[in-house]
């Protein structure tokens, strides 16, 4: 009993201390944004690594999810004779929920884990210490560009995901099942509000991007400096970021619903 309480107490204090360190770390990243030089080239190359290299995965997943939505929703809607609303149903579910959330999870698995692994490997091989010895702040040189890139690519990739999904459902609904192309698109266009749907969707994915950037860079930066530590940190990034993205999704949805 005593051991359990002790263990719980230790876990709580450690978690709080960990959160404190993470907050200080976030502060260092934000400060690094304003310190010259701006690291444009490093940010561009990080954007390529996180964004362009995730593009194929996001497009393929978006298309597939679009296919499935097209089939499932067509079947459901046709029971009520409402298959004409396929565009509305597909568009709203993709833009409001599936786009940001699934993109968040995919990018966490693809680019988030890669970011943690890369920073962690640099720590394990003393590259970060090497930078410090050259009086170059590793947060400014290594962490900040990658955090910026992860944050920025999330809304962009989410938009790509949504477009691919809508396209996929179009292929199923119109080309395969014979819905009228004009009514699919008109329904879609009528149902979607810019402020209510599109903007909220972008804000959601931006929040997911920030969360992922924070978690992925911190896990890499704070990992134990050896191969096993790097692999633990990488796994932990995917798990923690995925859970946080799902929780944040619920919180934001609930917030906007009231």
């Amino acid at each position, binding site marked *: 009993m005593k051991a359990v309480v002790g263990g719980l107490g230790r876990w709580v204090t450690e978690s709080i201390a960990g959160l404190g360190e993470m907050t200080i770390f976030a502060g260092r990243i934000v400060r690094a944004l304003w310190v010259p030089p701006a690291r444009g080239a490093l940010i561009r190359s990080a954007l390529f690594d996180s964004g362009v290299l995730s593009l194929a995965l996001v497009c393929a997943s978006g298309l597939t999810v679009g296919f499935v939505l097209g089939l499932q929703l067509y079947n459901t809607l046709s029971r009520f004779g409402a298959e004409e609303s396929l565009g509305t149903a597909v568009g709203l579910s993709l833009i409001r929920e599936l786009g940001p959330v699934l993109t968040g999870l995919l990018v966490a698995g693809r680019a988030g884990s890669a970011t943690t692994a890369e920073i962690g490997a*640099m720590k394990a*091989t*003393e*590259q970060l*210490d*090497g*930078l*410090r*010895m*050259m*009086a*170059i*702040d590793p947060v400014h040189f290594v962490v900040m560009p990658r955090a910026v890139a992860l944050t920025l690519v999330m809304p962009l990739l989410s938009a790509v995901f949504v477009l691919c999904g809508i396209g996929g459902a179009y292929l199923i609904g119109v080309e395969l099942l014979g819905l009228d192309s004009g009514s699919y698109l008109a329904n879609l266009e009528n149902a979607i509000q810019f402020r209510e749907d599109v903007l909220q969707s972008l804000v959601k994915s931006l929040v997911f991007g920030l969360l992922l950037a924070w978690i992925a860079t911190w896990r890499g930066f704070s990992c134990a400096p050896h191969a096993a530590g790097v692999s633990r940190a990488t796994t932990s990034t995917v798990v923690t970021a995925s859970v946080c993205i799902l929780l944040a999704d619920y919180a934001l949805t609930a917030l906007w619903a009231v």
Partner: protein
Amino acid sequence: MAGPEGQSDHVVFEQVGLAFGRRPVFSGLNLAFPRQKITVVMGESGAGKSTLLRMIGGLQRPDRGEVRVAGESLADLDETALGRVRRRLGMLFQNGALLDSMTVFENIALPLREHTEQSEEEIRRMVHQRLRDVGLGDVDDLLPGELSGGMLRRAAFARSIVMAPEILLCDEPFSGLDPPNVSRIEALIVHLNRNLGLTVIVSSHHMASSLRMADQLCLMRAGAAISGTPAGLASSQDSTIANFMGEDGVSYLAGLQDQPSAGDPS
């Protein structure tokens, strides 16, 4: 050149204690590294040589005691202020620590780009000069991962001296090098010290080179250190010294000790 008492030591350890978890590495370590001299730190694997160098760079903070570099106590400094001190240090890490996403050229040019206003032309000239110094040619566009172990260490050595530091810290500069390159790096270290006045602190297992270039030897064992001139250590009766150096080292040291009298004209 050397100032008043105490100023002649560039790096000073005072009563330094450090433990990793429950395992102590240093307990009450007192050490001084004289200005513009070459000090070779020896000691068996795990004795704490790398840790010692990392402490001089402020990468590892001691649990107890004080490390002073050029008169400044590192304990009082935050990361920004440490950066100021580190710009006077050059460090060769045991495994090189080059950035593996950048080419060799960009790695060596990096500190110049970050801290100086030099033109591309000047940077190019400087980097190539340093690469020639360490005996590397035509590796500009290779990534560190594409170099051999010995080439990597020499490229890292080039990076550690490119900013013309006051204090050069070298963690095992000779490991993995062929004999000609050992001589080359040894000569380079001696040149940097004798002609450019660098204070050099080297950790090494390479007995012959170490003994040839050392102004001061420092033997680490059991969390403390014995230091002295090579000749001084040779005349010491301490059996641990003899044990560590082996027969070669001791006879070499004995030879050193005999030399002054042998060469004495009177």
